[in-house]
């Protein structure tokens, strides 16, 4: 996966594909398609919420997050690391 443009499009399951249970700093997530449970800390739930509506490139996702939140560290590398985790867990797919 190459971070340089154009880069992959990241997608998450639509909202019905996840069951969320906020606990404290963590949110428990049941992923219906895999039958797996994950505990997420931010920014993972926020990323999933955005990518569940529409697939986005890394840059577009960063822009979207910056629109919705005050980003403490708006770097592509930090976001790419989060996305890699979500991809490995199967919560986000690339195309």
């Amino acid at each position, binding site marked *: 996966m190459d971070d340089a443009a154009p880069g992959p499009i990241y997608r998450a399951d639509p909202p019905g594909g996840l069951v969320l249970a906020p606990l404290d700093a963590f949110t428990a997530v049941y992923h219906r*398609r*895999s*039958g*797996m449970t994950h505990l997420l800390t931010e920014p993972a739930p926020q990323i999933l919420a955005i990518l569940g509506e529409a697939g986005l490139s890394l840059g577009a996702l960063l822009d979207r997050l910056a629109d919705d939140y005050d980003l403490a560290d708006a770097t592509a590398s930090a976001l790419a690391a989060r996305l890699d985790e979500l991809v*490995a*867990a*199967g919560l986000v*797919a*690339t195309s």
Partner: protein
Amino acid sequence: MRRLVTGIPHTLGTDARLLARALADPGRVMALDAEGWTSLLTIARAEQLIGTLALRLDGLPLPRAVEAILGDARAAAEQGRRAALWEAEMARRALAPLGCPVVLLKGTAYAAAGLLAGQGRSIGDLDILVPRAALDRVEAAVLGAGWEWVKPDPYDDAYYRRWMHELPPLIHRERDRMIDVHHTILPLTARVTPDPAPLIADSVPLGNGLRTLSPNGMIVHAAAHLFADGDLAGGLRNLWDIRCLVEEFGTEGLAEEAARHGLRLPVARALRLVDGLFAGGRLAGSDRLYVRRLTARDGWGRPTRPATRLAFYVRSHALRMPPAMLARHLWTKWRKA
């Protein structure tokens, strides 16, 4: 409570025939008493067919305890199906960049295609078939996506690569699930070596980037797997697969497809055994021995008929390898055990 065979009506049998008949003709379970039910459920678990039985009996008026046990089995089968299809999806994601066809085999294929054979079926490892030419790239891709070798053993590894029809087994380090990557459907050591190229060429797209074998390809593979790739352990489940595939797709063109791969005899035998075990057909000659082996299980779930079992075990190894290699293989395994 000395012998628990007394509660089973004679028409249902006292070995795994009890299970075969319940699967084929669910209405017959209405004759079972508590001991008969206990035997049936135990045998079904031992043969890994409890989920299948649960779906076959769904909707019948059953004793409450039985309904509860089969309800659990249905839920377990559904969760197993979900996990199996997810594993296939994760393999798809890993292999998509290669652009080569990826054909699902066995249980995962039946479930993915929504076939009768997949209903309630227990599914273990993920089995996929890929073109031999793509094998090195497939190996690299799965290793890059979190799968690892199960056994870093030089003897086993060399054995697999030289003689087997698949890569040595791989397991995913996060999900703890195994994947078997096949490049043909029988070991290269077997007396018949089916040609995988037409199997892949005739495979059917599932619409999600993965494929299954053609209907006749599935039946041929299931028969090859049943007779040549094991000692008939778990054979009842494999035979039930074949019965469902035949019911769903019929047998048109099957003999030709079987002949193309040198598997005319195993496929013909599988059809006879299906008829004998699941449709009350009369069996003759060595077919009866096969049924003796396939149904060698008592109401406590114990394997029975040790001599028959041993004979099939030796036979399975003899089929897979030339005699000298068989001796070498058994010797190496024995020395290490």
